[in-house]
């Protein structure tokens, strides 16, 4: 019987629109999570797939020792494809010419991801091939041809084996990003290795195995591999590499997660407000039901069924709309990017359903419990139960739920805490300020019959409700401003690293004598270039006179010197420069000011790792020469810029006397690339490193993320609007009563309309102002902690916040009340 009654009441409440806002709020939370998770998931997978092309696999295992066969048999058992690669440096011989080069020997499955491109002649067009050279053949990069003065079809020798030069190696997906790596690349078949006889005891050989397969298979395989990994074996994916692509992927994921989080926070506020309003509207029917003999259990069953039905309906709607929306968004992205995005996993749907149910239950639980407690005596004493409405438990429970959702969704305790605490402080400050301001505004001395006076009186009268409204508005505006500014900063930060004329190639190994020739050549061919950075190879030998540990070879069973201070363990590329590089920020000390004996500037993470402080002395070893300099500054280096970056920079007076090669970043349009071949032919010691593909990948990532962020902003805006609507609706009944009284007293329509408009306007201005202050503070902290950006204040939002707040709140609030204002007084009385 109770179910029939419950369904009847539910149908009527649904028809009357009482459940619309709560349904919309839950649906919006589900839709937000579903859409964002799916888009993030699909873009993430796409970016990862694309990025994986940069390591030619999904994962890589590297070592300086050969791998056991079990690595391969287990991979096969886990349905993971493998490809073997061996690297070594060796001398190439072609007649009388010889040249050292990096040799890569691959099997027939290489590459597992990405494209291998070759040319049939030095001048020909490149095309994609599905596998590396067959046994007996060799493919080489242009520079090797020029160095050895040979052509396609000639023969070369590597170790004891002879090879036919079959093709020009144009692009390898896993070519190193480092501009200091050799660009003399040679690819042979792994079956030819025994013929070369290059692998001897003590040879510096590097082994790499590429892995590809679906994510689960790889995860399962790694679970087996992990306990079996040796100290000299390193397992990594694209995210582990310190490359600009990996950096972009991580940032994009973090941003989208954060945006989703804010959407959920707003939807949660809307659910809490609308659930409270719905329950308050049910106080009388519940009191009546109890008076007419309805038991507490019956009432509980009726309203729990309502909540369940609303949740099921809203979650279904949210899932459906979210699914359609992410499909449209992804199609749009795919069209723009000219590629297809992989299907999303089930995870987004599960997270969305979980979020919807948690939001529905946790944010309606306390209002529902209050509703069950409504005494039947309310039928005689109309205000009984009203005091239950403001509940600290409800506030606490809602806040805890929001925080836990934030934690679960962002999996970042720092960001969740920053956003949560700043929002909580905002709420507290606003509550206090609003009470002060509202009581202070009594003394403004306005005429009682003016719209402004009525607006202020109305604000004062509903001081408690308005404080809550103000907090909701400010929170919504704060989160929207926060996201909008972060989006702009993030994208402009990315774009500033990759301007239209960003370098797309590096010229390395330029000698002092070639520097002027290269410069003239580039000018003549209208190729833009950055400065020429001198590079000197050297080693940090000691810190403050204390010797640093040198690197040891595990192969020769050397023991590490535990007593020695930790050092870099390898030769570094050192440079000298008079002014700090543009994309470096001096964070401690001062840039070179002429300290006697020489100065050095250290990248801050290296300084931290090696425990180097300002004023310390570093001992360098270059060739056989040693010298010491003082550390006078620390630098923050943005590694994601495609610029030559250095861990250690020395003052020109120290290093300029050492023989150096030069490096320069250039921007060369596709059609001009051929022109560079002339330069390389004439100066075979110079190498070119092409990073065009890398730049295209980063740009594509940025474009995908920018579009996704656009969708996110629309969703967050919708959530914000819903908060406002739910708040205005919560006060509609009271406003209608006021309108009736004012109309009855003869107030003109214009006066009432203006009073309501001004009331919302004032609320909006105040909420917008406070929101701007708090979002800027939260931005400063989050940008620094989460996105490693240098935080700046944003004066624009101090203007936009109050303006947007006033317009947003006034227009939306007024338009919701307008329908009521147009009713005649009799109609309003009836509706009350």
């Amino acid at each position, binding site marked *: *019987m109770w179910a*029939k*009654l419950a369904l*009847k*009441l539910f149908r*009527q*409440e649904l028809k*009357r629109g*009482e459940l619309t806002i709560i349904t919309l709020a839950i649906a919006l939370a589900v839709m937000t999570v579903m859409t964002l998770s799916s888009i993030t998931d699909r873009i993430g997978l796409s970016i990862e797939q694309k990025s994986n092309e940069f390591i030619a696999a999904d994962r890589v295992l590297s070592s300086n020792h050969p791998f056991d066969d079990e690595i391969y048999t287990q991979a096969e058992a886990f349905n993971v494809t493998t490809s073997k690669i061996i690297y070594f440096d060796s001398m190439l011989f072609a007649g009388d010419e010889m040249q050292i080069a990096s040799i890569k020997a691959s099997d027939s499955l290489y590459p597992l991801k990405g494209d291998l491109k070759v040319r049939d002649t030095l001048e020909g067009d490149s095309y994609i091939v599905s596998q590396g050279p067959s046994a007996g053949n060799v493919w080489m990069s242009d520079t090797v041809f020029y160095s050895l003065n040979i052509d396609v079809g000639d023969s070369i020798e590597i170790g004891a084996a002879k090879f036919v030069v079959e093709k020009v190696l144009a692009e390898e997906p896993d070519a190193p990003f480092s501009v200091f790596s050799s660009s003399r690349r040679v690819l042979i078949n792994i079956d030819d290795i025994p013929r070369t006889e290059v692998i001897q005891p003590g040879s510096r050989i590097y082994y790499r195995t590429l892995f590809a397969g679906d994510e689960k298979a790889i995860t399962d395989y790694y679970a087996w591999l992990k306990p079996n990994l040796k100290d000299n074996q390193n397992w990594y994916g694209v995210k582990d590499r310190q490359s600009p692509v990996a950096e972009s992927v991580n940032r994009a994921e973090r941003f989208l997660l954060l945006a989703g989080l804010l959407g959920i926070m707003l939807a949660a506020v809307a659910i809490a407000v609308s659930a409270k309003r719905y329950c308050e509207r049910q106080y*009388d*029917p519940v009191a*009546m*039901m*109890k*008076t*007419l*003999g*309805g*038991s*507490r*259990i*019956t009432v509980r069953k009726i309203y729990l069924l309502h909540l369940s039905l609303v949740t099921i309906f809203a979650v279904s709607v949210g899932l459906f709309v979210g699914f359609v929306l992410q499909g449209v968004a992804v199609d749009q992205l795919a069209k723009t990017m000219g590629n297809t995005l992989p299907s999303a996993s089930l995870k987004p749907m599960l997270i969305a359903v979980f979020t919807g149910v948690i939001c529905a239950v946790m944010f309606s639980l306390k209002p529902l419990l209050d509703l069950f407690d409504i*005494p*039947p*005596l309310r*039928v*005689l*004493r*109309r205000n009984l139960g009203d005091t239950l409405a403001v509940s600290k438990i409800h506030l606490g429970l809602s806040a805890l739920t929001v925080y836990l959702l934030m934690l679960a969704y962002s999996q970042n305790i720092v960001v969740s805490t920053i956003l949560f605490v700043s929002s909580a402080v905002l709420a507290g400050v606003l509550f206090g300020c609003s009470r002060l301001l509202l009581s202070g505004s009594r003394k403004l001395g306005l005429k009682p019959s003016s719209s402004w006076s009525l607006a202020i009186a109305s604000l004062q009268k509903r001081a408690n409700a308005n404080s809550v409204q103000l907090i909701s508005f400010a929170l919504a505006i704060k989160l929207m401003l926060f996201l909008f500014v972060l989006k702009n900063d993030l994208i402009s930060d990315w774009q500033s690293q990759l301007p239209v004329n960003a370098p797309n190639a590096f010229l390395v190994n330029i000698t002092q004598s070639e520097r002027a020739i290269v410069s003239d050549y580039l000018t003549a061919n209208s190729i833009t270039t950055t400065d020429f950075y001198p590079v000197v190879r050297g080693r940090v030998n000691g810190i403050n006179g204390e010797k640093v540990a040198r690197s040891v070879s595990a192969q020769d069973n050397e023991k590490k010197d535990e007593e020695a201070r930790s050092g870099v363990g390898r030769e570094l590329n050192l440079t000298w420069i008079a002014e700090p590089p543009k994309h470096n920020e001096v964070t401690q000390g001062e840039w070179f000011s002429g300290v006697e004996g020489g100065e050095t500037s250290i990248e801050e993470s290296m300084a931290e790792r090696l425990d180097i402080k300002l004023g310390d002395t570093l001992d360098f070893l270059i060739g056989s020469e040693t010298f010491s300099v003082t550390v006078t500054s620390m630098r923050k280096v943005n590694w994601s810029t495609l610029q030559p970056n250095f861990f250690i920079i020395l003052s020109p007076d120290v290093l300029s006397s050492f023989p150096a090669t030069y490096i320069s970043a250039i921007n060369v349009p596709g059609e001009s690339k051929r022109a560079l071949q002339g330069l390389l032919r004439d100066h075979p010691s110079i190498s070119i490193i092409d990073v065009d593909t890398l730049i295209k990948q980063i740009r594509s990532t940025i474009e995908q993320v920018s579009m996704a962020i656009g969708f996110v902003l629309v969703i967050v805006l919708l959530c914000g609007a819903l908060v406002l609507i739910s708040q205005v609706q919560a006060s509609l009944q009271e406003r209608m009563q006021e309108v009736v009284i004012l109309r009855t007293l003869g107030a003109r329509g214009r006066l009432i309309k203006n009073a309501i408009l001004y009331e919302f306007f004032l609320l909006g201005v105040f909420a917008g102002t406070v929101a701007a202050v708090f979002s800027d503070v939260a931005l400063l902290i989050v940008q620094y902690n989460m996105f490693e950006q240098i935080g700046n204040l944003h004066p624009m939002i101090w203007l936009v916040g109050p303006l947007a707040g006033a317009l947003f709140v006034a227009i939306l609030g007024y338009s919701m009340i307008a329908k009521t204002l147009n009713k005649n007084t009799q109609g309003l009385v*009836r*509706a009350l």
Partner: protein
Amino acid sequence: MTKLSQMNVIQVKDLTKKVKTLEGELTILSGINFNVKPGESVAVVGASGSGKSTLLGLLAGLDSISEGHIFLDNEPLHEFDEEARAALRAKSIGFVFQSFMLVQSLTALENVMLPAELAGHTDAEQQAKSLLEKVGLNHRLDHYPSQLSGGEQQRVAIARAFVGKPKILFADEPSANLDSKNGRLIEELLFELNQESGTTLVLVTHDEQLAAKCQRILHIDAGQQIDDRAGESFYVG
């Protein structure tokens, strides 16, 4: 336990109601004693704030008493918890309120069916239609409260009060929100149905004319019972 006289449908003995306020304990009602026989009509009168509505709430089991006894339809109401009181209301009590108290989201027919449905009656719709016809609203069955006039809303409330054939009907200022013409019509309807169904009627009112129609008048002043006499003689005296 005080013995209940089988002759009375309501028996009130030494009834006291106290509430806690910021200033301390406040006695709202004290020393109330009266009995009501089945089918009898009783008006509770008194100035605003005298405790009339509190008494009505206690008699109907909407609130718990502080001291004393109330027997309602042979049941010791003072010993019941909220759930038991609700069950007793469902079985034996009907209500009419000054502000009608209709559920806004239900139609006239559904409002009248509500108590019968809560009590688990299977013929709720039939009962409700028959009562709405009696109060002259068979043409307004599917109208919502907001689509009805004040008089019509109170007629729906009266029909609702009589559904399930309650033994006792409590009315709180049933005509106070209506104009005099509609007020009189409602009063007539209330007494007509009361007599027709043999229901005991206890009503709270300021209206002397309405109180005078009752068989007995109970006068409350400042929480004390100061008079209990026949309706016709009350105002004459």
